């Protein structure tokens, strides 16, 4: 009697597990574990029709305009090439892109074609392969890591600067754009006097801190010494040096006096609404915001300029860094996939497609081929900056590579430290000493 009951029970359990694994099996078709079968399935049913291939693609979706641009390109590519299926596994999450990639890797879902932002780290870990050499011809001197090119750069890093409300400037009686940093501060005073919050900062999202922090770092440090990071690792320079301290003091004073009080709980994605609703006059950010702002309020009039330093020189972000599309090591072992991916990459960079991508996020092309698009008045300023030989081009602290790469975990910690610096009104020198200690510890830890 009992045994019959157990038999029934175990049958149910067995059936349930079969059902579950069947359900699971179906839905995991996109994962790399099933890679080999996809090709051969295609073969069996293909005949002389092109082989069915599928690969996964992953990219940062934090910015809605970028996301749409890439997703649209993927759609169009699939329509033009019905035998190639691209499974888009990108997920918008509030977490950083690196976090997301790590998660995907931990669960074995590392994308076949992946947007790389921390190229060196993943290259060293053996997760990505070199860009196939036949694709190199598309680009103008792409950056190399360890002498190799690992990415198809999606864009050249473009300058960041002040996005300002024309109305707010008018009402504060500002008629000229600043030619020096001191004039910029004067403008802030005028804005404050006219009753509007001068600057909005999306401090809740740690990456947003980088915009301002790097502006000061570039002016005082990187514009004159692009190899500062490697020197810091070798302990030849320090965060307590006068130039860094000056940079951070400027940052601290700006934040304490002219940034909207709620900056620590304002998210990056709220900054556009702040501008268009007149809650703040300026936002320091990059070209991808132009589209966001225009969408938030098509009638909002805004301008863009880069803030000069005290001597009136303009230094901006504008060097290329190793970032862009990369092929994962796993995918590279499947020749069919690699072919399909290369096809997609070529498609992506074709002027008619690439221009759409660039236009949606106001980016600067990285290809040899001239790609142009209707650019807004703000974008024209950016292009002028890039074309002006007197404007020094540089990079943010975490975008340098090779000898100049900082420990990957340093950036977030440093930005958080700087938040604390403002909030607790700390002594800049003391805080910079802490930065030195932490930097050295991290270098040591990573070397182990």
């Amino acid at each position, binding site marked *: 009697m009992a045994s019959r009951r157990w038999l029934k029970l175990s049958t149910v359990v067995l059936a349930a597990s079969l059902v579950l694994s069947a359900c699971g099996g179906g839905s995991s078709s996109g994962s790399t574990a099933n890679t080999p079968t996809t090709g051969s399935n295609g073969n069996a049913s293909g005949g002389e029709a092109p082989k069915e291939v599928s690969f996964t693609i992953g990219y940062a979706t934090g910015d809605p305009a970028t996301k749409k641009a890439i997703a649209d390109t993927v759609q169009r590519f699939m329509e033009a090439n019905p035998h190639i299926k691209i499974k888009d596994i990108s997920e918008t999450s509030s977490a950083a892109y*690196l*976090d997301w990639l790590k998660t995907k890797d931990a669960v074995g879902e590392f994308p076949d074609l992946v947007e790389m932002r921390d190229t060196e780290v993943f290259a060293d*870990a053996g*997760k990505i392969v070199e860009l196939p050499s036949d694709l190199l011809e598309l680009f103008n001197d792409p950056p190399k890591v360890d002498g190799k090119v690992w990415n198809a750069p999606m864009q050249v890093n473009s300058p960041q600067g002040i996005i300002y409300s024309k109305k707010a400037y008018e009402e504060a009686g500002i008629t000229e754009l600043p030619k020096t940093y001191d004039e910029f501060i004067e403008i802030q005073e005028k804005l404050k006097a006219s009753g509007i919050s001068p600057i909005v900062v999306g401090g*809740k999202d740690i990456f947003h801190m980088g915009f301002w922090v790097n502006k000061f770092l570039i002016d005082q440090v990187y514009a004159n010494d692009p190899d500062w990071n490697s020197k810091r690792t070798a302990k030849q320079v320090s965060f307590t040096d006068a130039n860094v301290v000056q940079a951070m003091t400027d940052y601290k004073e700006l934040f304490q006096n002219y940034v909207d009080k709620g900056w620590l*709980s304002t998210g990056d994605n709220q900054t556009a609404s702040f501008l268009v609703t007149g809650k703040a006059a300026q936002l320091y950010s990059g070209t991808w915001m132009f589209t966001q702002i225009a969408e938030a309020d098509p009638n909002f009039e805004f301008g863009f300029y880069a803030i000069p330093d005290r001597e009136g020189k303009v230094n901006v972000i504008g060097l290329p860094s190793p970032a862009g599309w990369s092929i994962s090591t796993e995918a590279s072992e499947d020749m069919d996939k690699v072919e399909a991916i290369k096809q997609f990459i070529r498609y992506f960079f074709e002027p008619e497609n690439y221009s759409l991508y660039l236009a949606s996020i106001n980016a600067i092309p990285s290809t040899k081929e001239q790609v142009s698009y209707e650019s807004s008045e703000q974008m024209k300023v950016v292009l002028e900056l890039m074309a002006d030989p007197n404007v020094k081009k540089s990079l943010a602290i975490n975008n340098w590579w090779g000898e100049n790469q900082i420990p990957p975990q340093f950036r977030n910690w440093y930005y958080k430290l700087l938040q604390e610096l403002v909030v607790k009104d700390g002594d800049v020198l003391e805080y910079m000493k802490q930065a030195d200690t932490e930097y050295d510890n991290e270098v040591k830890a990573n070397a182990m």
Partner: protein
Amino acid sequence: MAVSAANSDNAYTAAKKKKKWQSYALFFILPSFILYTLFVIVPTIGSVYYSFTSWDGISADVRFIGLANFVEIWNSPRVHNALQNTLILTISLVVLENLFAILLAMLVDKVRWLSNLFRSIFYFPTLLSGIVMGFVWAMMLNYNFGVVNQLLAKIGLGAFTVDWLGDPRFAMLAILLSTVWKGAGYYMIIYLAGLQGIPQELNEAASIDGANGWQQFRHITFPLLAGSVTVCMVLSMISALKIFDQIAVMTDGGPGFETETLTYLIYKVGFGELRQGFGTALAMVLFFIILIITVFQVKILQKREVEM
């Protein structure tokens, strides 16, 4: 197992039963044992291994570095800060959650009308997802658009509007607020059951003897709640030490490092910043802290129970 004495007169049957027992006990425990070992213990052991390495979480290359991670944890000011935050948060949470829980339980017990409705209202937040409600709280406490600040402004207390999530003085408070709101109801139910187990006559007799409300509480109610207190304190302590959702969603450990707790540090540095070996070592440390505190707590509270 005094009951088995009744059957001990038949030694043979007893021995035979014991043999039957044994195999069945094994059979009963086996499925749980297998699943638990496979999906909890094995990965934990794997983690223990990783905590002695400098693995970054993605390379195939795993390098053994001995106790270096633990040395770093011992020396790191960031870990000390996280430890401090964790302890402050935990103690505050345990005290506040239990205080509110007892208060609410007593109110629900004593209120003459609609007690079920009130019980439901206080208990309901526990059922919700920490992540989801964390977002709601974050939006409510937003400096510019949040309802709390706007409400304060409307009723004339505009001077009290603060950046709840961005001001270091208040960030911890904000986390406490949303967590107590979510947790108190759960413990309230336990205390309520305990309260309802206290015979009315005791309190009545005491008031006849002239004891006032506070005295009754101190000498009758509270001691008789000792069992519930033990359970709730232990549960709330373990839960507080592992708090994560609210911090992830509301403050990201900030502003600066103000609300960074051990669990959050493990996630942020170990997982998010490519220091899996270090993160795992930190998790081991956290586990030991939880273990020690729990054992300690249970011993103390049980002693009190007996005394009472």
